[in-house]
């Protein structure tokens, strides 16, 4: 990727992020209900509400509010939750850790299962293991996360008592316990991801196996292992890389149900709570952070594409 196209992509990313910021801000304004009542309760006198609005800037015109907020964001100040008095940037820093760990964990698990299985199934196309893996991936794709979560908790926590049912331990306290607490939710997410990755990679490998250069590689007398892992895997990985990036961005903050069921203090539940309590400062900050993660990861994927695919790197 040339410097110029990189700059163009970065420029697009900035445009997208600013648009997301505006959109979130607007979304917050269309939600019914006002923060003052949520925070002050119905005992609030009009004077108290006015005072509250003055303090939070809610009495300013929307454009002015946005300017103030966005200027703060540019300086790393996401504002303060009117409801809990917590600095949003502090909360986001705390909340981002479990969310990121969970998603990274889930992605690693999903890839560890899906990649070898997909290559193997594509190579043994039409055989029993391929058929079984295909059927399994279809069922997993069709099973909602909440059903998987309920089932996993029931089996591994309640029946076997092998893993904690809920909760999260920060890694600085006890990394082993962090691993244990995140295992079930990560598996919940990973099963769905693995099914998608399996299908995409298998299709990609099948597609690659039809390429002339695979026939050429076979004509060179290479072993199936060499053909599969030296020649086939890398070109087949390209669509998967995009998807991994997309899902990463999507799940940081998108795993709302899983975070709630497993009581993980992540970005998803933070944003959900903000929606339900109309805590706009929190909602705006969280959505902006989630969007930023999404945009950055996809930018990174674009760069990675260049590394993986010389056709893009050396494009004019």
């Amino acid at each position, binding site marked *: 990727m040339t410097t110029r196209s990189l700059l163009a992509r970065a420029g*697009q990313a900035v445009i997208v992020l600013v648009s997301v910021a505006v959109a979130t801000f607007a979304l917050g304004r269309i939600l019914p209900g006002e923060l003052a009542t949520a925070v002050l309760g119905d005992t609030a006198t009009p004077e108290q509400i006015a005072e509250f609005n003055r303090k939070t800037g809610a009495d300013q015109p929307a454009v002015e509010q946005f300017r103030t907020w966005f200027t703060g964001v540019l300086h790393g100040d996401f504002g303060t939750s009117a409801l809990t008095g917590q600095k949003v940037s502090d909360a986001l820093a705390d909340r981002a850790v479990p969310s990121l760990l969970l998603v990274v964990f889930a992605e690693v698990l999903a890839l560890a299962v899906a990649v070898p299985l997909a290559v193997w199934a594509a190579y043994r196309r039409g055989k029993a293991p391929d058929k079984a893996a295909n059927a399994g991936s*279809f069922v997993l794709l069709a099973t909602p996360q909440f*059903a998987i979560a*309920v089932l996993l908790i029931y089996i591994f926590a309640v029946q076997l008592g092998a893993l904690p049912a809920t909760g999260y331990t920060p890694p600085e306290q006890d990394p082993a316990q962090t691993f244990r607490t995140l295992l079930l939710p990560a598996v919940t997410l990973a099963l769905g991801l693995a099914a998608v990755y399996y299908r995409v990679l298998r299709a990609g490998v099948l597609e690659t196996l039809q390429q002339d250069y695979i026939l050429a590689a076979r004509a060179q007398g290479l072993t199936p292992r060499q053909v599969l892992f030296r020649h086939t895997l890398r070109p087949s990985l390209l669509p998967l890389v995009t998807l991994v990036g997309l899902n990463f961005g999507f799940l940081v903050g*998108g795993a709302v149900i899983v975070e709630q069921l497993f009581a993980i203090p992540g970005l998803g539940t933070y944003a959900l709570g903000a*929606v339900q309590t109309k805590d706009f400062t929190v*909602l705006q900050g969280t959505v902006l952070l989630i969007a930023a993660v999404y*945009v950055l990861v996809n930018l990174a994927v674009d760069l990675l594409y260049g590394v993986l695919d010389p*056709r893009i790197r050396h494009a004019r």
Partner: protein
Amino acid sequence: MPADTGLAGTPPPDLAPSSASASAAALSESPRNGTRPLPPNRNRLGTGAWLAVGFLAVLCAAALLAPVLPLEDPTRSDTDALAAGISGDHWLGTDALGRDTLARIVHGARVSLVVGAGATVIGAVVGTVLGMAAGMGRGLLPGVIMRLTDVLLAFPAMIFALAVIGAVGPSTTSVTLVIGLLFVPGFVRIVRAPVLSLSQREFVLSCRAMGMSAPRLMLREILPNILTGIVTYGVTMFGVGVMVEGGLGFLGVSVPPPDPTWGGMIAEGRQVLAEHPMVTLTPTLVLVLVVLCANVVGDRLSARLDMRGAML
């Protein structure tokens, strides 16, 4: 990206499927992008896919006919049969409030299928129009459309859905609209790529040269060429829509009670999961089956139409 990535370009003579060289199909396991029609068995989906189509058709028919079918009132509680098992009165048992599970599943299908299909149609129509505009438009338009889809993709989908539904109130319409909106970027991408390459093809260029208007060109020349891809992707997205509706119902923000929704039934059933697992398992199984069927049909369609990418 250069065009000669091995996916485009002239097929080698011996590999190009032609009516006479059936060897080509056998030679490389499946034909590469040939220009001539595929063998005549392209309409065969296979037994599994037909079973899936059949199941979906029966469910659709049941949902359509629900008011005239001899079903119980899905909102009426039989207080003598709470969370009852399968019986002559209640073929699939009852839920914790004593309501007939079969009736609730069939009536719930009205919500789930309408949301799944409606959201897909919204996403497909809006996405196709925007995708074609992004693929063929000139000037700022394509950039604006692509940035808009980026914004929508970057916005956390679940939060977006919860916030918008919270703002306008939960109903079949609002849930359908929100999910449909979330589907738009996918369709834009599915449509834009082939439109980009089609718009450089000779027949399109010549139509342009002959002064055919852009909308007419899109409708007459471009759309027929990309329709199969849209339909295939749409079938899969239908399943996704059903699943997303289930998720919203599970969080309690889908169509309000007492109208049954599958997600809502699953969430309500969890209250009695330990003693009466069937109350939540039955709607879960139906939901899984419907999404499974949509996926199978979509997959078979895409395999038939050689649209492997569509399952993304």
